[in-house]
């Protein structure tokens, strides 16, 4: 589904991704873990097209999309719930969701919105509120829900559990798992490495712009180095 080869990316002249190789197969949940500043967010931004790639290649569903502009990547089925949530603060919750389905104008949009409301009932309650007035966690829910409105084949999640209450963290992971059933592939960046590795099929570990480890999630979770460095066990 998604293949990343020798991806390099830089802010100005400072390179922060030094050749990332990564693969996500259709229907998989793949997680990326790593310390602050490892480059996880930068990687996801490259994938969604909001950060320029200096060299390397991104393949998505058999096509090279390295040079495809960000707004066209959703058309191809690649959606992102970005770091920092990036919701439309001046628009209402409902408008945010509607814009998530900007590409569509069929009947399914309403149904999708109802799904989102079922998933996060608080959003329904707040549907007419300016999204900027939501609490941090509520905004996080909105960001995830908005990404889902785009009917992605592949969903990029940047720390979706951030700022969510324990109950909801659990729920988010359930949602991610349930996406599998809906045939949505997920690339998940998480600080809650334990939770992420629990539901993931495979995982990658990033350190200072490089992939240092990868493998089946169950192996990673058992790896003592990972347990010490990221799980704090």
């Amino acid at each position, binding site marked *: 589904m998604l293949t990343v080869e020798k991806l390099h990316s830089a802010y100005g002249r400072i390179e922060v991704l030094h050749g990332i190789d990564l693969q996500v197969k259709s229907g998989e949940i793949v997680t990326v873990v790593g310390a602050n500043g490892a480059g996880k967010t930068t990687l996801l931004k490259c994938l969604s097209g909001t950060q320029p790639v200096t060299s390397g290649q991104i393949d998505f569903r058999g096509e090279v999309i390295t040079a495809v502009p960000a707004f066209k990547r959703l058309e191809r089925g690649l959606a*992102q719930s970005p770091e920092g949530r*990036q*919701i439309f*603060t*001046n*628009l209402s919750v409902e408008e945010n969701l509607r*814009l998530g389905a900007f590409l569509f104008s069929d009947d399914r949009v309403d149904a999708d919105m109802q799904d989102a409301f079922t998933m996060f009932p608080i959003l329904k309650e707040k549907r007419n509120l300016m999204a900027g007035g939501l609490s*941090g966690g509520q905004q996080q829910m909105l960001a995830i829900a908005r990404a889902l*409105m785009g009917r992605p084949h592949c969903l990029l999640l940047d720390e979706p559990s951030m700022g969510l209450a324990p109950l909801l963290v659990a729920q988010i992971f359930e949602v991610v798992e349930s996406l599998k059933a809906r045939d949505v592939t997920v690339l998940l960046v998480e600080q809650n490495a334990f939770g992420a590795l629990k539901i993931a099929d495979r995982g990658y570990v990033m350190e200072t712009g490089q992939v240092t480890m990868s493998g089946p999630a169950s192996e990673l979770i058992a790896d003592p180095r990972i347990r010490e460095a990221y799980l704090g066990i």
Partner: protein
Amino acid sequence: MDALMQFLLSGMTVGAVYALVALGFTIIYNASDVVNFAQGEFVMLGGMTTVFAHAAGLPLPLAAVIAIALTALVGVALNKLAIEPARGAPVVSLIIITIGASIFIRGAAQLVFDKQLHRFPSFSGDEPIRLLGAAILPQSLWVVGGAFAVFFGLWAFFTKTLTGKAVLATANNRLAAQLVGINTGWVMTLSFSLSAAIGALAGVLVTPITLVAYDVGVGLALKGFAAAMLGGMGNPKGALVGGILLGLLEAMTAGYLSSQYKDAVAFIVILAVLFAMPQGLFGAKHTERV
């Protein structure tokens, strides 16, 4: 009494002119947070092009349509050639670009056209309509009507259409807009062409009343900007109400207080309103949580 009526009508006329300019600001502002200082030049282009096309023998309506279309093209060119290449520049820099563009367009207009004042005939003659002892020109009704029509159009655009929401989303968070699949470049092009067309339409409507020359844009933009801020930037309702209010204020001050200080009084009222309502009358309060 009939004096009051006259002041009201006069205020409405001038106010509608301001409102049309203020409405022109709305779209570009809503798409990019940029106040386009070349908006006045769009109005000028609408008027001047019509004048010269009409003088060249085209019937007035055709001349007007051509003027609006050409000005819309200028708007697109402005976006493509000056705004888009500066992608990522801070908003102040973009504003300076629009100031540069306004100087450029003025410079071009004085070469392509001339530096004289012009007007063309009113659409429905110059026979004043008497109303409760006061008189209003039919052209004023065109201007007022135009302001309301543009207002309704914009209002519907921003509240009822998904494209309108896409425009708002682009200004609010361009990155997120792209993530939901909005072609923000296209949104900008659309916004510039619509703003320019509205400006040109304003020029076509007001020229029989205000006259036009290559440099009328600056003054119009200034008043339109003040009106937009009084009403609350970005909101079509604000632009309409702000414009008309400003016009009425000026007329009332000129009629009852001092014609010398009518602009001053208008600005003092604007200041007073802003002190009480820092977002203008209808401006959206931005909720930013910390």
